């Protein structure tokens, strides 16, 4: 008998700001929707462990999609004529288009790094539609991540992005999973990791606006690994403290890619949050 993962994949067309996008997504389970957002320069493969966790999928419909330019979602027509720079407006628009097109009602949106930043923006702008948000490795502002190295002609951008992000993980996370994160990062398109960092390191800035998030309407959970040096646990704690009613948890022995680098440890932090939102 062949062995299958319980994940199914598909393509959905999303019209955002007059542009038609063919977007790849994966899903597993049934129940309340849990929408997962990948990190800069990566794709939905980061959530394969979560999508295969029966303790989650028995209660949740887990979905993860590849942003355009990432994974199996091709760039829109004419991509070669534009510098890829992800903006707050474009990113939020794409996630809400997916949510509405897929008819996800009151989803819990889980995002990591740039996805973690985006969920805070969703809570601020779309708290009526989004049931709750879980931000991993997120803070009001992440500085210093928008760099040109990966597009320099004398640098292999795919290897650079993979090796640059490898050190964000905790050294005690299992090596095969850390290497998997490296592998998926090495498959990003040219300039895409850089263009994603533009969103959370240049364009978006929540500082001073944290109180605009109504956690009575849209509860906020922030979880950050202690080994993450791009977004430190202290920075996440500061953001959580500025959002009235937000929850913060420091994850010991974990780095910047919790769901990928050490899912067994990460789920010990995630499951209590999901139980609260069932």
């Amino acid at each position: 008998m062949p062995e299958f993962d319980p994940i199914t994949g598909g393509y959905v067309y999303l019209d955002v700001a007059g542009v038609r996008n063919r977007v790849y997504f994966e899903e597993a389970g049934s129940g309340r929707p849990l929408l997962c957002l990948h990190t800069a320069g990566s794709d939905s493969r980061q959530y394969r462990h979560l999508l295969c966790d029966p303790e989650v999928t028995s209660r949740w419909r887990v979905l993860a999609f590849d942003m355009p330019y990432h994974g199996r979602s091709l760039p829109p027509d004419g991509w070669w004529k534009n510098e890829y720079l992800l903006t707050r407006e474009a990113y939020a628009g794409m996630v809400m288009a997916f949510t509405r097109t897929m008819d996800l009602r009151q989803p819990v949106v889980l995002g990591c790094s740039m996805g973690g930043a985006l969920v805070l923006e969703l809570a601020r702008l779309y708290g009526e539609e989004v049931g709750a948000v879980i931000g991993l490795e997120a803070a009001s502002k992440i500085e210093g991540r928008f760099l040109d190295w990966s597009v320099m002609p004398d640098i292999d951008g795919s290897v650079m992005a993979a090796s640059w992000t490898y050190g964000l993980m905790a050294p005690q996370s299992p090596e095969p999973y850390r290497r998997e994160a490296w592998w998926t990062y090495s498959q990003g398109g040219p300039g895409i990791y850089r263009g994603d960092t533009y969103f959370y390191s240049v364009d978006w800035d929540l500082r001073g606006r944290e109180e605009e998030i109504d956690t009575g309407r849209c509860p906020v959970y922030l979880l950050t690994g202690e080994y993450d040096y791009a977004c430190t646990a202290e920075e996440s704690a500061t953001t959580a403290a500025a959002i009235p009613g937000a929850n913060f948890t420091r994850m010991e022995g974990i780095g910047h890619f919790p769901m990928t680098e050490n899912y067994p440890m990460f789920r010990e932090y995630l499951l209590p949050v999901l139980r609260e939102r069932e």
Partner: protein
Amino acid sequence: MGRLTIPQHSFPAREWFESLREAVAADAEMAVIGRWCDLNLALAIDGGLVLLRIRGGKLVETVFDPDIGVSWMVTLRGTLDDWRTFLQPLPPPFYSDLLAMNSRVPSFGIEGDRSAFVRHLRPLGRIFALAQRLGGEHA
């Protein structure tokens, strides 16, 4: 490194670098990814300097306190405490990676031709992962 009293096999004693040279030469991954790695890299440790000449992904020469006639491209500068905290199999947060220390440890820096450092990031990451397995302190 004459100002420091360094146990014979601890970082940055000559014997420690010899152990690192052997580990890099024997590493299967470096045999795959190191072939195109040629770099002169200096480690600044408190007041001292150790120059590593890397050719084809192998440590072909270690020069202690190089004189004025010697050049290199990249310097990794830190205190002895920085280096010893980094050189452990399980360093604490912000000390597990060279870029992490560059970001979060004020006394540590990546200096010189940073483009060269980034070009060689993958093999350098492996060399220093092997160095962390060696550990920095030995009685």
